[in-house]
């Protein structure tokens, strides 16, 4: 017997989680698409966004400043990381890139654990978005509803940057063929740096937006990273629309399965990924050729 209000609220949970996953995955996927580097520290960036936001919040008491602080911090970290380390790995094998970003991710998590200990921290939602909202037939936490809206706005902003600006055109051209873009006289390294910053910021932004929903722990990014991988495999590596579609699919799979038995959420996610790999090896919206 299905409990309808419960089911619908799980659908909303799935939408909120899916939107977040979509945002984080777009960050990962545009970095990979443009730079050819899979950033295994992306989950840690998500976590850092939450913690940087938490610090801003404790000093200012403003949620909006926390969001700005969290996003900016991670963006700057991303830029520094690209300049100092990642840049030297463009010409090295994929395995080395994976190893170094994996190691960096561990360092970030351990630094946070060192400073804040493993205790979970809470950032309350802004006063305006606290409490619950009546949807007529059911009640739903206001902030979670707002998350869907906020993330949708962020995704739209990312879309505009990618599809309606000169920079976005260069980035998309770079995804197709970065050597060609370089030979057209565009400083590809500067573009790479900006893309890494934007991609990292997407994760950091999601991290602070998510903080009022799930309390912060240093390990919070690990699970998210794995889910992001599934999203990217389902949607197709390097595809922005694919990341959004994959994110929503993964979010709903996790939420709906959790309603029946949380233990199977990952199993179902995995089944979906396997199906995609068997039927469409390049992902639902992925382009052929990139590997």
């Amino acid at each position, binding site marked *: 017997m299905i409990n309808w209000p419960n089911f619908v609220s799980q659908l909303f949970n799935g939408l909120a989680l899916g939107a977040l996953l979509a945002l984080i995955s777009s960050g990962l996927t545009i970095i990979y698409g443009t730079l050819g580097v899979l950033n295994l520290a992306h989950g840690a960036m998500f976590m850092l966004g939450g913690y940087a936001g938490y610090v801003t919040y404790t000093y200012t008491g403003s949620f909006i400043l926390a969001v700005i602080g969290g996003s900016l911090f991670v963006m700057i970290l991303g830029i520094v990381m690209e300049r100092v380390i990642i840049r030297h790995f463009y010409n090295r094998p994929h395995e080395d890139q994976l190893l170094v970003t994996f190691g960096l991710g561990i360092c970030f998590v351990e630094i946070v654990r060192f400073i804040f200990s493993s205790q979970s921290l809470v950032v309350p939602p802004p006063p305006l978005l606290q409490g619950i909202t009546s949807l007529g037939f059911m009640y739903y936490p206001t902030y979670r509803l707002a998350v869907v809206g906020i993330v949708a706005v962020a995704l739209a902003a990312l879309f505009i940057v990618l599809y309606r600006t000169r920079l976005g055109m260069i980035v998309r051209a770079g995804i197709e063929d970065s050597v060609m873009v370089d030979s057209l006289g565009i400083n590809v390294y500067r573009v790479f740096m900006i893309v890494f910053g934007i991609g990292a910021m997407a994760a950091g932004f999601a991290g602070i937006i998510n903080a009022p929903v799930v309390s912060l722990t240093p390990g919070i990014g690990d699970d998210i990273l794995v889910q992001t991988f599934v999203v990217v495999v389902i949607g197709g590596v390097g595809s922005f629309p694919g990341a959004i579609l994959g994110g929503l699919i993964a979010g709903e799979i996790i939420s709906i399965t959790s309603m029946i038995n949380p233990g199977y959420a990952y199993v179902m996610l995995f089944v979906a990924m396997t199906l995609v790999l068997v039927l469409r090896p390049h992902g639902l919206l992925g382009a052929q050729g990139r*590997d």
Partner: protein
Amino acid sequence: MTAMLKQRRFLIEVLTAIGLIAAPFVLPHLGFAPNTVNRILVWGLFGLGFDILFGFTGLLSFGQSAFYGTGGFVAAYLLTRAGFPNVFLALVIGMVAAAVTGYFVGLIALRRTGIYFAMITVAIAEVFYFVEFNPLAEWTGGENGLPGVPTPSFNLGFTTLHFTTGWSLYQFLAACYFVGVVIALRIVRSPVGAILSAIRDNPLRATAVGHNIHGYKLTAFVIAAAYAGFAGGLLGVMQAFMPPDAFMFETSGQLIMQTAIGGPGTLFGPLVGAAVWLFLQDFLQSALGLGAAWKLVLGAVFVLLVCFLRRGIIGGIADLYRLAFGKRAHRESAAASAKALTAEEEQAIAEADVAKQPDPPPMAPLNRAGDGYAGPILQATGLTKRYGGLLANSDIDFTVNHGELRGIIGPNGAGKSTFFKMLTCEVAPTSGKIVFEGLDITGMNVTDVCQLGLTKSYQVNQLFSGLTVRENLTIAALSELRGKFRLDMFRSLQSIPGLSEQVERTLELVNLTTRPDTPVSELAYGEKRRLEIGLALATSPSLLLLDEPLAGMSPRERVETVKLLKSISKGRTMIIIDHDMDSLFELVGRVTVLQEGRVLVEGTPDEIKNNAVVQEAYLGGVHGVLDA
């Protein structure tokens, strides 16, 4: 390091045995507790399989915890809940379970390569973790794990050996590790091991010389899973408790980091890495009182190693060793060989060699099933390739007879390389049919076609750049001698009949006999080019395609290579694409001219030289004698 591993028979095995026997007497003085040493051994055994997968085959899996946990929990379940009496047999069953799991996981994960492979293995390992915790909690004890795993004892009739804890258990673990090393060394030195390194260096060429690389990758994956499973079982035995965190992502991560710290591709890297890791963990936590920050320090060490010492501690030591002792040896050998000579002098010597050398005995192509066939060796009809709106090849009819030497010329963009790619089945034609020795090969893959006796040398060198000249040719020759897939993992390379002869003959043919043990990265361009042809030749093809064999060569090198091509062509059918028409016209019996994806004209070199249409195509209507 691979070269070092091959130095002397059983040297490494003996050194390992000595090290394992000496460890209990030496390590306590260095501050290692017996339990720490035991943990190092379990990690080291786990890592042997992982190194075959990552260090030798180049597949970086982030999901080894899945097999570690599977093997561990199967063994622990048998020994605790199921009341299974024999510890060793339970460990073996756990290993088999992990290997079977690895087979199925590998089927999915190996559908893609590179970063996809990494992401898929992470996701799969997470699934195992959650499955262990929830749906299977009844069997695995969920977050409590399985306590009460017994230690092994062996009844020898007259006495019973019982291994309990500490140094007593060490003996059992050391024996397991030793057997693990012996097996791993055999695998690495077998034909399968050679092909695994070829896959790491250049999967495309490994496929093209006729190896089913998917099968071999899956093999490496299953080997790694089996090692992981056995090590997982040992973890339970060692702790008398099977912890659920064996399944955690951290386990996979720690394995990768230890391997990278110790040195991948060395087999012993994971052991060294584990020793460094566990020692530093103890040292940082207790001696320096850093508490939880130890992992941060180790993480930073790891990042620095990846940045500056990619080959890990063992690789670094090997480099130092070479720097200290290798230089002298190098200088001595340089005096003897042509190594220290200038390129000019080397060239002169090489040429003198070519001049005085009697022609090497022609290497006959292998007799294959289709040899009774009397018609043309290759017949393509209506071959068309369309890339979107671009028509690369259009309706090409092309026939080559046995023993013929055919040239293909055409302006850039005429579709020559695309045509070759279709003939070797690297790309499928949009329409048309290819018949090789009476067999329709349209739609087959490049590996099978190579096994049938049709292969090509590439326009841009596709070598196994991390291996030596001899190893390169060995890999190509193996495909002819062993077929596209065979699991002779415990056979040594030396025991394959005909292998060394074939490699030597090919070395002679491509004039690289003076440099068989030189790494490819140290070869001159002309030598690389000759090795490129040698790779195709070592598969003993009955039809050999050569895509611009003379490209980028100096005039001298050309002379040498033309001579080489002439000697190869005895008893063999060849098709050659090149822009050097003087050389080509001298070599071949007939020439096909391609232009804009179509056959323009076909004839003898003289007919082509004087053909007005060809002159038009090349010179744009200026009529005269074509002599470029």
